[in-house]
Structures are given as structure tokens and as C-alpha cells.
């Protein structure tokens, strides 16, 4: 029997494969095109480690999600890369004497892309929706008591109590303003209409794969439209993200310490910057669950017992900075000296345990398979065992981790936390009602310092923030290990500037490399 048919079939398949590869290499696929186009300032393609859940500004989020909203929505204020607030939709802003009334003056020449004019009523519609929309950042406007339209270009925001972070919030998620007509239309979650530098091109958008934004021809500030088109590709797998940037599919990508080395060897520009701190949250500072933790010497011993340098080298591939303070670099609370407040010193840790008069004890901490690096849990377990503390790791589902921590199920836990401004950080981990203060522990000094940060003058806020930082470090409320570096890469044709306290740069910070 002859098998000419076999040969014919193989030939057809081979020809098909070649034709297929021809299709790709001839540029019909979008990836090579985007990379090349960026040289002319045409298209910027960004790999995003998160996918947007909703374009509704009431559901807007910070961090990785900001870059999805910035193309289509202007915010009231704009945060420069270094965190400085500059005008955007609001040209001026001013507080009253006790910082409870904020008056915003709006631009009078802005129109949403559906033709609706931007005015104070539109801003009020958005600000009223945000805290009641049950979005992930809704609580950032919790202090807002009332939003009043004074005239078409003036909005007055009255607060229940001063919120030192409010202006920052209005520069990110809480400040994105959508067309009230579009909000009323009910399709804002998938059909975003704002006044931003770009509009969503739905014909070139594939949900969960690619979001294409094209230049808004009537935009009021052309200097923010560096590219004709911005494409955001959600690539949730870090290896896939590495492949995308190395193969030239995207111009910029946030990677991880584990994929950093491969990207660094591929003629890409690397940016390293901190946004988080990682370490132990010692929740049970009053000893309700584990009595030994009520003793400051035990908490200090825990800090001295952790070999932070080794953990950073093993878990974070050495990309980051060892620290002992929970407040971030670039904030008013940061103090250089506190970086090394608790160096690795097991002998001193043992001495403190002895002085505290506590024997060996155990503590249960949560771990999540796939999220907690085995080297991390092994290291923490060994370091604490060396001073007589046995860690019982309890497996929890990834979806239950935060919930179990904030509900007070654990006396201690390792975690990675965002480092915002002192007021944001205080409300995250320190105040009695802070998210990560499940046992609501506090003391008079902390209360006083927090009050100064909230109610004090700018100078008093700075001083109080530093004092609060010194105090919680001295009292060992936490055992910070290090600030891991975010590792962002851009190709040779693209440049950017990392955004302070944000996982990814703002879209305004990208430009073609010169």
C-alpha cells in the first residue's frame, strides 16, 4: 500500500504551519506592531498584573488597577510621580481653618466625551456615589458628610472630621469623575465615559485580554496624550508576563523577583522601587490570645530573632531593603535610623525572653499554599524556634486569609502591606479601628499621636508621624522584615517614572525613550 496520502497530508500541514507563521510575522498580529509603534510615540502597550473588574468609577481601586481608569477618567487632582498634588479637574483647592471644609474650584472648559459638560453637579454626583457604591475604596470617603454645589465651578466638601489623606484620595480612585449622563445610563461598568485623555475603543478591546484606549481628540491638556493609543494587556501569570516583555509584545511590564534575572539579561530598562513592607503583624499586643505577647520584651525578642537579610536573599532574591519600621520611605514618618532598630541578634533575643520571664510557648499563624513562600515559613519557623517560640502554621484558603486576620483569629501573622502616607498607614495598622488591629489595642500615647496627625497643623502632623513611628517600633507592635522592590521593566523604546506609593507608574509617566 502506498502512502502518498500521508505525504500529501504532511505537506499540507507543513504549508499551513508556514502560512500561519507568515501571518504572524507579517505583522497582522498586534504585538510586534505595538512595540515598533512606540518608537514613533504611536502605541504604548502595558502588561498589567491585574484585570479590571468594572469601569464604574465608584468601583475604582488603587495600585495595579489605577492604570485602567486613568486613560478614560480625569481625577479631581493629579498625583505627580513623586506624590506632589497638581491641578487636574480642580484648579484650586483650599481647606478651612480646622480642615473640615474643602473647597474645590473646577475647570470650566472640560466636556465629557459624550458631550456632557463637567460642572460642580457632575462632581457631586460622583462624590456622592463613591462612598455608597460599596466599592473597594469606598471607605476612603467615609469622613465626607456632605458635598454641596456652590456654583457651576465650585464644590464644597464638608467632613465629619479632618482627613489628612483626603487630597491624596481625590488624586486617585475617589477622584475619578465620570459623566453623570453615562452613570444614569447604567452602562458605565463596561462603557466608561469620562473626560480623560483617551477613550475606550470597544472594537479593539477583548475583555480579560486587551483594553485599547485611543486619543480623545478634544482633550483639554494635550501634554498628557504622549501616545496615540494605549493598550493594557492583563497578564496575570508572572511567567507569561516575562515572556510578553522579552518577546516584545508589551513595552512595559511589572515582574517579580523570581523573574527579574531573566528580564535583566534581555536588554530592558529596569526600575526598582518600594511600595509595600513585609513582616510579622503582632496583633495580640494585649495578650488576649497569647499572654506572652503582652510583654514588650517578647515582642522585641521576636524582632531581634528574625534573620531579615537571609529571608530577603532567599525569598526576595535580595531585591529590597531590610527595615524595622512599618512606615515607608518618602513619608513624613520615615526615619533612617529606625531601619536598623532591630538587627538580627538571637543572643539578645534570648536574653530579652529570659528577662521577660517567659518559657517556651507556641503561636498559631496562617499560611496560604502558593502565596507564602516555603522558604519564608521555614525561615520564620526556625528563627522563632531558636528563641523558644514554636510556630504552628495553619493552612487557610487564599480567599479567607485577610478575613481571618482582621476578624482576630490569629495572634500574629506574616503579611505584605502597602505603605501609604502616615495617616493611611495609621488607619491600616495602628488606630484602634484599623483594619489590621483586630484586637483594637491602643494606649494613651498612640491615641494622642494619632490625634495630632489628624487634627494638627502640617508641622505638627510631621512631628507626630515620626513620634508614632518611633513609638510603635520601640514597642515592637510589628516585626517588619523588609521592603521588597517592585521590579518594573520597559523596553528600549519606552521610558517611565515610578509612582510614589503605587505598584505601577501612572499612565502619564510613560514616554517614548529619546
Amino acid at each position, binding site marked *: *500500500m502506498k*502512502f502518498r*496520502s*500521508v505525504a500529501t*497530508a504532511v505537506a499540507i*500541514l507543513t504549508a499551513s*504551519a508556514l502560512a*500561519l*507563521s507568515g*501571518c*504572524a*510575522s507579517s505583522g*497582522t*498580529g*498586534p*504585538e*510586534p506592531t505595538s512595540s515598533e509603534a512606540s518608537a514613533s510615540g504611536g502605541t504604548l502597550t502595558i502588561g498589567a498584573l491585574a484585570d479590571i*473588574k468594572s469601569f464604574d468609577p465608584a468601583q475604582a*481601586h488603587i495600585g495595579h488597577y489605577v492604570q485602567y481608569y486613568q486613560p478614560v477618567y480625569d481625577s479631581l487632582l493629579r498625583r505627580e510621580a513623586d506624590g506632589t498634588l497638581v491641578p487636574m479637574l480642580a484648579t484650586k483647592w483650599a481647606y478651612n481653618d480646622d480642615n473640615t471644609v474643602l473647597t474645590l474650584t473646577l475647570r470650566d472648559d472640560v466636556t465629557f466625551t459624550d458631550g456632557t459638560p463637567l460642572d460642580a453637579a457632575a462632581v457631586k454626583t460622583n462624590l456622592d456615589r463613591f462612598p455608597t457604591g*460599596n*466599592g*473597594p*475604596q*469606598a*471607605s*476612603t470617603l*467615609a469622613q465626607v458628610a456632605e458635598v454641596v454645589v456652590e456654583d457651576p465651578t465650585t464644590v464644597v466638601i464638608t467632613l465629619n472630621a479632618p482627613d489628612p489623606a483626603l487630597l491624596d484620595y481625590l488624586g486617585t480612585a475617589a477622584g475619578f469623575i465620570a459623566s453623570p449622563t453615562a452613570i444614569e445610563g447604567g452602562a458605565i*461598568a*463596561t462603557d466608561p465615559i469620562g473626560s480623560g485623555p483617551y477613550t475606550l475603543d470597544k*472594537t*479593539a478591546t*477583548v*475583555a*480579560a*485580554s*486587551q483594553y485599547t484606549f485611543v486619543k480623545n481628540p478634544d482633550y483639554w491638556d494635550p501634554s498628557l496624550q504622549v501616545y496615540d493609543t494605549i493598550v493594557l*494587556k492583563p*497578564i*496575570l*501569570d508572572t*511567567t*507569561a*508576563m516575562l*515572556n*510578553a516583555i*522579552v*518577546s*516584545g*509584545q508589551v513595552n512595559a511590564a511589572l515582574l517579580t523577583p523570581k523573574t527579574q534575572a531573566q528580564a535583566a539579561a534581555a536588554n530592558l530598562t529596569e526600575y526598582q522601587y518600594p511600595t509595600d513592607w513585609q513582616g510579622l503583624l503582632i496583633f495580640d499586643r494585649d495578650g488576649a490570645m497569647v499572654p506572652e505577647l503582652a510583654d514588650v520584651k517578647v515582642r522585641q525578642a521576636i524582632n531581634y530573632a528574625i534573620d531579615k537579610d537571609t529571608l530577603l536573599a532567599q525569598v526576595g532574591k535580595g531585591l529590597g531593603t531590610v527595615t524595622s519600621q512599618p512606615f515607608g520611605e518618602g513619608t513624613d514618618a520615615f526615619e533612617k535610623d529606625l531601619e536598623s532598630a532591630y538587627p538580627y541578634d538571637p543572643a539578645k533575643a534570648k536574653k530579652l525572653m529570659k528577662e521577660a520571664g517567659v518559657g517556651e510557648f507556641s503561636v498559631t499563624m496562617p499560611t496560604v499554599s502558593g502565596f507564602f513562600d516555603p522558604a519564608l515559613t521555614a525561615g520564620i519557623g526556625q528563627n522563632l524556634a531558636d528563641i523558644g517560640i514554636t510556630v504552628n502554621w495553619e493552612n487557610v*484558603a*487564599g*480567599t*479567607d486569609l*485577610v*478575613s*481571618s486576620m*482582621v476578624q482576630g483569629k490569629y495572634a500574629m501573622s506574616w503579611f505584605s502591606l502597602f505603605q501609604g502616607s502616615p495617616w493611611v498607614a495609621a*488607619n*491600616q495598622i495602628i488606630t484602634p479601628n484599623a*483594619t489590621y488591629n483586630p484586637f483594637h489595642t491602643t494606649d494613651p500615647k498612640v491615641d494622642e499621636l494619632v490625634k495630632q496627625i489628624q487634627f494638627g497643623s502640617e508641622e505638627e502632623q510631621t512631628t507626630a508621624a515620626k513620634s508614632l513611628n518611633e513609638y510603635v517600633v520601640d514597642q515592637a507592635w510589628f516585626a517588619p522584615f523588609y521592603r521588597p522592590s517592585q521590579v518594573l521593566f520597559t523596553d528600549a523604546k519606552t521610558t517611565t517614572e515610578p509612582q510614589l506609593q503605587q505598584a505601577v507608574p501612572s499612565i502619564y509617566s510613560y514616554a517614548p525613550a529619546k
Partner: protein
Amino acid sequence: MVSFIFRRLVSGVVVLFVVSTLTFFLLYFSATSVARNILGESATQAQVQLKETELGLDQPLVSRYLSWLGGVVQGDFGVSWFTSQPVVGSILGRLPTTLSIVLATIVIAAVLATLLGVAAAVRRGWIDRLLQIVSIGASAVPQFVVAIVLVTVLAIQLRIFPATGYVPMNQDFGGWLASIALPILALAIGAVASTAQQVRSAVINVLSRDYVRTLRSRGLAPREILFRHVLRGAAPAGLTVLSLQFIGMLGGVVVIEQIFALPGMGFLALQSTTQGDMPVLMGVVVYIVIIVVIVNLLVDLAVGWLNPKARVS
């Protein structure tokens, strides 16, 4: 035949009901903090409780199940807890990606495996030995390893295909072909190898049957015996393997979709499981079961057409 189809459809509905019910109740015992995960870490306890009420999580389990089932019977799968988008829309948006990869892989596997399996069974000798060795090797290498090698060579080094992403067919046909080429290749290598082995064994088995010997003794041309009788006899085995491959791929494609960042059903299932997005996950389960039932029905019909004895059974 009509009664056969009816019986299979009824059994399919029973399977769908049992699988979806079990999944619903099993999910209840897994992640429980979905409201906080939706709202984020800064949400207050009052907001979390409000969200739980909004999602119906404060209702008894049985009442939630009946509510879900009632909606599904009317074609309403609800909305995603995380995106507020209709579940059916999310699934229909992802289905083309997964089906285009899996169906194309099955077609390629069917053609190549038949050619290679028949060649090995008829020719035997070195072709057969080579097929055996290559098949074992190809079957032994995990799909994700194949995928990573393909990306490294064809996407990163040679830049022939895109490393990640999906282009819909109606947007750009060439882009679509390019975007699914590597995922298909990654899935097809193992599928061709294992299916070719089954086809080879089935053809050898049929070739040794008495009726084939009789046909030969009557002087029928080898080509006629092969195409009219042997392939017809061996086809049911091949079809069964392909249907199993298809069903296996619906699960295995999760890894492939992750590696190539494809917005498919597998990735949707993984995401909704990780987040605890129960409406979406239940929708994915129901759709997958429906697809499996349809595929099994079609294979049964095809086997019955090829082999009338199977219809009786």
C-alpha cells in the same frame, strides 16, 4: 435512534443536575470570606455585612441553592459577584477562545493520529517502532513543558508567534490564527501521540479479524479493505479516545491558558475559584457539563453509525 438520543439526553440532564448540585454544596464549605474579598481590606464590618446581605449569603444554604437552580432553569445564571457582569455573557465571551483551541487541537489530532496510526499498523517495521518511541516520549512530556519550550523558541527567540494574548477571529483572522497556534501545538503533541497509539492498536486488531482475512481471500484490493472495512471497524476506538481527549483538554487547557494569558474558560474557572466567585464558577461547571454531554452524545451517535451493533447496546 430517536429513543436512543432521548435516553442519552435524559441521562445527560441527570448528570448535569447531580454534578451542579454537588459542586454547589461543596463550594459552600470552601472559601467563606467572599464579601470582604470583593470590598477589599479597608472595608468596615458593616460594609461586609451589607454586601453579604446583598449577595444573599445570609440566606440558608438550601434556599440559596433553590434560588440559583430556579434561575438556571430559566436561563438566568445570575451576575458575577466581583464584576457584576451577567455570568452567561462572561462565559460566552470566553467560550470561543477555549473551543477554538480545543476543537482545532482535536481536528489536528484526529487527522495526524489516523495517518500515523494507520501507517504504523499497516506498514509495521521501522515506522511502527518509531511511532511507539515518539508516542511514549511525547506522551511523557507534560503539556506545560511543551508550551514553555514553544514560547521560548518560537515566540521569544524567533518571534514568529505571539507569546501571549488572544485576538478574536472577527477582529483579525491572521492574528487569531497566530494567537492560537502555539497553544494548539502545545496541546496537540500529546494528543496526537496517545491517539495514534490507540488507532494503531485498533487497526492491528481489526486487521487480524477473520472477516478481513476473508475479504483478502476474495481478492479485494488492500486499499479497499483498509478504507471500506478496517478503518470503519477501528474508528470507534479512535473516536472514543478523541472524545476523552476533548473532555480532558477542557480541564487541561487551564494551564495552557495561563501560560499564554488567554481569556478562556479554563482561566475563568481558575479565577472564579481563586476569588470565590460562585455564580461564575457554577456557570462554568454547567456549561462544561453540557459540552461534555453533547460530545459524548455525538460520539455515541457516530459510533452507532459506524458500528450498528453499538446502537443495539
